[in-house]
């Protein structure tokens, strides 16, 4: 029917909808919770959310595409958030990005072919003293150099292959 529609198990959303009113959750919160479940926001999920929250589908997609947190495409198992804040910029974040892109052969916003890594540059992770910084899933890595960054990525890959 359409791109990224998927055949998501929409019953997973029931709990969110059930508690929506009680928690005073707005559309953003609902989308955040849905993304936690699916890892991204498939189109059928967005539709279901529109249906159940009473917001028009146009509004739901409008919100989902406004905020950088929301992803409409699947991401890799490891999501690299590379900080490009001011301090990181001054301390060489561009070089780190280059190293990641060369190592993984992807660009900002892309996912590696094997689905292991996705790269997303972000405005600021608020760890400026450790700049340059990146976050892979929940873990933060600071004081990066291109060589160390590549080593971290290879280490993850080794772990995955083992």
């Amino acid at each position, binding site marked *: *029917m359409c791109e990224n529609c998927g055949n998501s198990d929409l019953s997973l959303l029931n709990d969110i909808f059930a508690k929506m009113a009680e928690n005073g959750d707005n559309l953003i919160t609902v989308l955040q919770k849905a993304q936690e479940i699916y890892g991204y926001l498939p*189109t059928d999920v967005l539709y279901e959310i529109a249906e159940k929250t009473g917001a*028009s*589908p*146009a*509004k739901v*997609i409008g919100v989902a595409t*406004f905020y950088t947190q929301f992803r409409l495409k699947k991401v890799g198992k490891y999501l690299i958030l590379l900080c490009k804040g001011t301090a990181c910029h001054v301390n060489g974040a561009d070089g780190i990005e280059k190293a990641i892109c060369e190592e993984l052969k992807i660009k900002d916003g892309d996912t590696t072919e094997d689905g292991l890594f996705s790269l997303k540059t972000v405005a600021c992770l608020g760890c400026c003293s450790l700049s340059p910084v990146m976050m892979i899933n929940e873990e933060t890595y600071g004081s990066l150099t291109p060589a160390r960054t590549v080593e971290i990525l290879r280490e993850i890959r080794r772990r995955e292959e083992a």
Partner: protein
Amino acid sequence: MSDTVKLIIDGKEITASSEDTILLAAEKNGIEIPNLCYLKEMSPYGACGMCVVEAEGSPKLLRACSAKVAEGMVINTMGERALKARKIALELIMGDHKGDCIGPCKLNCPAHTDCQKYVKEISDGDYEGAVRTIKDVIPLPASIGRVCPHPCETACRRQFVEEPISIAYLKAFAADEILKSGKHIIPEKKASTGKTVAIIGGGPAGLSAAVKLAENGHSVSVYDKMPKMGGMLRYGIPEYRLPKKVLDAEIAEIEMLGVKMVNNITIGKDITLSEIREKYDAVLIANGAWKSSSIRCPGEDLEGVFGGIDFLRAVALGESPAIGKKTAIVGGGNTAMDACRTAVRLGAEEVSIIYRRTRDEMPAEDIEIEEAMEEGVNFRFLTNPAEIIGKDGKVCAVKLQVMKLGEPDEKGRRSPVPVEGEFITLELDSIIIAAGQKNDPAGFEDIATTKWGTISADEITYATSLLGVFAAGDTTNSGASIAIKAIAEANEAAKFIDAYLEGIEIPYKKAVISEIDPTEDMFTEYEKYPRIRMPQRAPEDRRNDFTEINLGLTPEEAKAEAKRCLSCGCHDYGHCKLIKYADSYCTDCKRLKGEYHEGFKETRLEVIARDQHKCILCGLCVRTCEEIAKKGILGLVGRGFDTVIRPEFRNTDIASICASCKKCAQVCPTGALRIL
């Protein structure tokens, strides 16, 4: 609970409700504050930044759409700061607004004929409408349609799909259809003004101006030195390209309008310019460029050397110039093509074109070159006459210098340079020099000229150095050019003659418009559909006589061809708020061009076509759909520069949800939305 307050807007004392915004209060008092994202029925949005006004005592500009009036406020809607802010807002919008206000065909036509409109009319089968549209600019559509080198087609965007629309032949087709029907399309005439205008020269320029001036109620007389009207169309274009009965029919219609035609009058001989000036309230000189230029080559005075247009004129007058069996034509333009093909038809057995560059540089139209080749003309590229050799005072041969192309200059043009010592000799009975033409100043000595000897005419008003005397066409400024350019100048000149006669002044301002810089990748959505080929008589047949070589299009062919039009010009031009403001506030709307936002075209709503390239994100359609139509099917998608407006993301069923109220398109301040 609303109180009234007193304030001053643009020096005008106003009483308004304290609930009113400045914009509303101004509007109620007949002061228009520009805006692009505002609609009275909805809450203000604040996106366009056009409604900013200055308030005394406020360092910041106020957005009039949302700022409320207050007691004692002093508002200036046209202050320098506000104007500057609007200008930059518009320049930013225009720099990200991708669309053609006017079709490139119309823009590139020197006379701005509304090609897109008449092509559409032809595709709808409305030939009369088409001819009216053309005649708005060109009084001789069947003739011009046959001979025009069609700059419109050069600009046609369809070439990015495969080939341009055959606009000129469509024009000829529509005009022929109407001529065939016996119907005369003659413009409405205004009441007589009692003013008289003399036009010197009955060619395309003179006749066009005559029509325009007659339409405006002036009494017009056209003087021409030749026995019949039509100028170069009659005496420069061979019959096989333009049958003179077609021209006669079209000129007859001009006569029906009440234009007086006086032939066989040469200025300076039969009547002087001052006599004419005395007799008439205004004069337009449009006597063309009828003298063949010399190539400054020894032997040019020999018998058997003809000027290109002199030769064509002689043939048109029914004479048979003695060109013999072997002839050569010097030059690479359309006149050279006409001359060589005429020579073929006169029975010459060996006809050559002598041209100093290569085919790629030839100024003549491709089709003319091809047709000449088909008819057996021999092309000698990279040769240039060094000497015309005579025997007993008569041409017997030409010595040709062999040329080569030099290094490209700054503009990439490669000029020909002689190959030292290399010559060819060509035996000839005659030689025709078609290397340009110029005007004849005889009889117009009182008028200031340019350094090239042409009449100096103001490029905007076409006024000459003599009061009440105007000049247009080949006789002026840069000299000979194509017919449609002469027509364009004549139409403009007519406008200023009219103003001169009425004693009014026309302020000059070039309209600001939006134009795209087309590239092929913008046109990938269109299916390829080849351009129509004009059916023609076979070369071996047509080279023997002067009967028209083109057989004309059938209505089916013409309609199919017209349907290829991409309708580049915006449907909203004329109503578009954006361009109206751009025209009044900007000087250069391309200044802040850069990367464009993502654009796309879509018709999923079935009743509305969206061209997102033209969208300025005023949000009016989205808000109207939500707040007024109560449908909410349009939405903003993405953020920042990449924001676009789309109908909701579901692919199916969307049209059935749309109320088809079309309100979104009605409120769109640009041509981004079109009602289908």
